[in-house]
């Protein structure tokens, strides 16, 4: 039996009917076509499906869609402003932090939450924050450099205001 839930995704209101067992990842990908959220394992091991739920990074494969009722979800589709990339995305592009790109949406969202919470993260804090997001291509080096650079750019932008 389906339940009608309301939630906000990328600042847009949705009303959707979901089975109680449906995960947030499945809702996003299969029902709403928001396929930027990737599934690598479905059991919370790889972090590819990370989204922000009320600003907190969660593995959307481990969250039931019904748990998102009345809450705010940010997926990778909501990070850029049209074609204007968020500074974290820009740093990922320019620093070469992307190879196959399958971990990228989760990495970007987790980095976003980190920088919002810790505007000047140390390398150790970045490594710790991203340790639940597996990447097999990059060795993490350029991802960490990108997050550092984005944090600096955001700090500089704030200082300038």
């Amino acid at each position, binding site marked *: 039996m389906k339940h009608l839930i309301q939630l906000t995704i990328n600042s847009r209101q949705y009303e959707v009917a979901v089975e109680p067992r449906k995960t947030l990842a499945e809702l996003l990908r299969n029902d709403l076509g928001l396929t930027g959220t990737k599934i690598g394992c479905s059991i919370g091991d790889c972090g590819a499906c990370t989204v922000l739920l009320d600003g907190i990074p969660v593995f959307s494969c481990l969250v039931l869609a019904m748990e998102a009722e009345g809450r705010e979800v940010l997926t990778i589709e909501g990070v850029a402003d049209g074609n204007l990339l968020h500074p974290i995305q820009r740093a990922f592009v320019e620093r070469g932090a992307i190879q196959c790109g399958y971990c990228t949406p989760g990495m*970007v969202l987790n980095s976003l939450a980190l920088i919002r919470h810790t505007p000047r993260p140390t390398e150790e804090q970045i490594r710790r924050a991203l340790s639940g997001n597996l990447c097999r291509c990059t060795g993490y080096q350029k991802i960490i450099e990108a997050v550092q650079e984005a944090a600096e750019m955001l700090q500089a932008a704030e200082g300038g205001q």
Partner: protein
Amino acid sequence: MSYRVLNSRVPRVDAFDKVTGRAQYTDDLTRPGMLYCAILHSPLAHARIVRIDTSRAAQLKGVKAIITGRDVPDVTFGVSPARYDETILAVDRVRYVGDEVAAVAASDLETALEAVSLIEVEYEELPAVLDGLHAMEPGMPLVHEKYARNLCAEVHWNFGDCDAAAKEADLIRTDTMSSKMQDAAFIEPQAVLAETDGAGRLTMFSSTQAPHYIQRTLAMALKLPLEKVRVVKPAVGGGFGPKASCSTAELVTCMLVLKTGRPVKMTFDREEVFLHSRARHQFFHTMTTGVKKDGTLLFLRHHCILDGGAFASFGIATVYYAGSLLGGPYRLKNMIYDGYRVVTNKPACGAQRGHGAVIARACFETQLDRIAEEIGMDPLELRLKNVMGTGETTCNELYMSSLGMRECLEAVRDASGWRQNRLARRSEATPPLPPPSIEGAEDSGKGGEGKRRGIGVACGFFVSGAGYPIYRSTTHHATVVTKVNELGGSVIVESGAADIGQGSDTVLAMITAEVLGIDVADVKAITGDSDLSVDLGAYSSRTTLMAGHAAKEAAEACRDRILASVAKRLGVEAADLYLEDHRVKSRRGSLDFHSIREEFSREHFGFTDLPADGELTFREAARVAFLDCGTIVGTGSYKPPKLGGSFKGATVGTSPAFGCSAQVAEVEVDLATGEVSVLKVTGAHDCGFAINRTQVEGQMQGSVSMGMGEALMEEVHFDGRGNILNANLAEYKIPTSLDVGQLNAIIVETIEPNGPFGAKEVGEGAIMPTIPAILNAIYDASGVRITELPATPERIILTGKEETE
């Protein structure tokens, strides 16, 4: 030579789509009315299928088709024609836990999975072969009747004269190294979406590394004409080797499409990725090496057994590579290799980054470390003494048309502070590991105490594209079609080449932009589609060199057409014209482009940014050429020259060029717990010429990370009945951001004569030194020599304890 585009750090052409979530991977695709496929896997390692009853499953609402081994075409296929041993589904017999017994197409995934659970199979269990080391022994059950003694392939090579060389040796050592079966652990599981059109032509979208080979295999296995099969590769979330094999998901999905006439989709779950495998073999190496007391390498006798699992897959190439890629990068005149690739009742193994050569390299490079210690020589100096250089040929006839091995070694020596580090270490005696104790563990927990640092070095080299295709043919290895639009504003590069994350689309776009004197943003690479061109795929680190050559040639053909048109209009020699910075330029002073400009202006395109009369834009030149001869199309192709010796198996290991790598690893070993932290790896790789510097570094860093995982933590665990115990990414551990240390990548460029603009590989050569550099550093820190991978804390403590006793 200076370039505008090449050798830069221009961002990847697909970065924007990937960072915004717009990039489409196979599992992101849907079709109206598509069906979902699920597979029934064998629960037993080896059994006869007595009976399959699909009647209950067929009655389930929503089930549209069920296929079993009775329905599959009577065809065996595989990778190497001489060893075709696979069928689409198991026919009468299952050969490993996970072997595919039946497949269902249903209106939704839940129904497909439920239907699979309703299929009843009666098995008669057979004795299984689970230990590769003993699979050849008399009396062992056979995995395939066609492989006597379970021997799928063997190699026996004898180069030079090892016996004579042994008489000159001052030191002869025999050492061993074994590893465990691994998983490539790409983050995107294999996914497939297939459909047919009204003419019965099959199109399959797949997370593959090799559209061309998969097209060929599908046609063969499904008994379809090749032209009835099209394979398209959307964005791929990593491959590292296994996705070069045709997967059962690809085969059964297509069968179900043909049976139902509807689109069918299947995505492996993570457990199925492990079960299907085709990843790194388990290796058992024994090496006997002789040297003079001055460190000169004299000979190598090498014996290796590879546990290949249930099918041949890429394993024939694997067993050859395991031997051939020890021919360099050191001068070694005498080499004997005896390699045996056996089949067992486990998931089939195949190619994985550094195909066949990684564990062999680990064995040999750790042995060199032992030799250096015994003869009292610095291990880096020992390597420098023996390295080959450009223009040399190995004993197994691999020609090094460029080889910056010495430069790489010197670069890591200097950048890592090798001498100071090593001297600091030598001034302290390395104590043996203390036996594990609770007190010791507590000490280390307090930080720093009981931990020792060590440093190790290793080298390696790898092919830059296999010299021969996997089927016997004189085919072109890469072809490219490049089109310049009628205003030159967008250039389309069409190719079957497969960008699986390594960045080949960016390389093709950069090469094209460089030749045409335009920006990467003006070029669009459309690739990974068997309809576009023939390209053998992303394996053996071949794409930059081979597809790069073809892209260069195609762009040059476009350039020549355009310049010929301009020259004809102006009555000058085309050879005097060239393209640079969006302009047509002349080598003989300025030209009067007035007449062309006038014609262009009359067409009223509304451009307001045209330069002064003395200059002609690429856009105008492209227009002139279009007006003269229609759409400007250039084609390019690449085929390696005849390579290698005439002995049996001489083709494997050949390549038009070889990349090489040296790395210094610095580790910290907790003597109480055996835990190893990799603090820093300094790597130098000779990629010939870096088309994109950021991407070269990315390949080097990714290689080190994967090698580190294989050195310290990666192991597929089996129970006594052939079940995988850790078929998930929590218990099959790959490095996280907390596990990898600083990865310092140094690019060495030697300008390879056989590479486009001098470029050669970086994707796989860079993993070669990682495992032995880390193992040598562990020894330097702890005095423990690890001969069984991975070097888990438990193994380090137990080995240390054995050595003390």
